[in-house]
């Protein structure tokens, strides 16, 4: 219901408050039960073993822009894996080399471009990057949306 090491009390209290449910037009607890951070109702099957061919198709055939980013202190989906597939499995040339990206004159992480797909790290962030690095995350998000380096 709650992943290890995670404090979900604020969200649980708020989303299980009848007044909140009513205010945000969500179904009441009497109908759909308690809100939990992660569901134990789901019986989910992973049927796609790899999304790398999909990334290639979306960015190289359909012209979408993509940003893959990693908080570099996350051990659940470590940056070491994302760096490997973005650098060696996309069959895309490196169009801008590995370099630091900055926020307020500080190194916020590193970034490398493979055509329309960029891979970036966020230094000192964990799995939930905006939680740990809110300012850097908003800056990264805005630059990506605006098509800036």
């Amino acid at each position: 219901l709650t992943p290890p090491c995670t404090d979900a009390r604020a969200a649980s209290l708020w989303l299980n408050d009848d007044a909140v449910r009513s205010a945000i037009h969500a179904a009441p607890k009497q109908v759909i039960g308690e809100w939990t951070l992660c569901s134990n109702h789901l019986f989910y099957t992973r049927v796609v073993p790899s999304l790398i061919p999909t990334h290639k198709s979306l960015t190289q055939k359909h012209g979408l822009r993509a940003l893959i980013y990693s908080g570099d202190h996350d051990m659940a989906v470590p940056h070491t894996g994302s760096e490997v597939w973005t650098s060696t499995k996309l069959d895309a040339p490196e169009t801008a080399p590995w370099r630091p990206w900055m926020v307020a004159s500080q190194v916020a992480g590193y970034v490398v471009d493979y055509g329309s797909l960029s891979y970036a790290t966020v230094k000192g962030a964990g799995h939930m990057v905006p939680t740990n690095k809110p300012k850097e995350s908003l800056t990264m998000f805005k630059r990506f949306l605006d098509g800036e380096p």
Partner: protein
Amino acid sequence: KQNDLIDAVPGFDGELPSKHYGGYIPVGTSGKRLYYYFVEAETDPSEAPVVLWLNGGPGCSSFDGFVYEHGPFNFRLADTKAGQGVKLTLNSYAWNKVANMLFLDSPAGVGLSYSEAGPRDYRTDDLVTAADAEEFLRKWFTRYTQFQSSRFFISGESYAGMYVPNLARAVVEGNEDGAEPYINIEGYLIGNAVTDTEVDGNALPLFAAGKSLISQAQYDTLWKRCDGGNFWNASAGCECDELLDDLVDAVSALNVYDVLEPCYLGPNYDDGEEDQDDEGEGWAKVQGAAKKKKQARLNSLQKALKSHGRKWPVVGSALPRVGERVHNWHTLG
């Protein structure tokens, strides 16, 4: 759409800085109802892009993003006369500063989304999830016609490394097949994205060695015994598998989601029933231990810096004034 407009949010005092909407959109034919919370951009929503956010799991609610990551509010537990409550203040770094943010609980059975058909609809997979989310999106853009020409992005993290590209593909292919309304998708972004069984499965040992959570010698042995770094599909009971178990043991006390952060309630806590008193006590203990550890780290940092004869500013000391030159200050970047 007007029925979904949110007038006020409990816990937050004041006027909302932009329009908020929340409600359900039905998908499929069996009674699935997907819940969304939409926060308009604080400046010029008609020009700002629309960005869908999906948390992962699979099975985790996108209110994780809304409450803890980049939503419009900061949430804080507060003691009230009636007990514990939640106070909301505006988040200076909310992503809706620059985009119209659409938080979706997906698939049905997650967060506030559900099915009138009950649990039989909670059996799902990657492709059904993508198809339902695409249907949701086209219906959402039908409800919010003013955003149909807006630039559109899909975002998420973790297992959304599966959700996001699958949904982007469904949207692109739907557009090509003439599905209405056309969705003006421009791109996507994903944090710490689950992507590939083999690559993701091989990532942990290198991470652990790179962060010095295990020794280089332990990593080198692993590499050799695991067929040159082929960690992900080790046969049970083989030497590689046993060494991987050792690695997992070595890092198991850490917070898997952030090796720098304390672990709330401990990594092996699996009690789904919440007990506020126990949680409070546990949290206090964890906080106390974290404080001691932090002080110990600071002490050792100060000793190390003294031994190098440098006057580095350290946490808690006075920061330099504007214009004041501090030896090596800039290298701290």
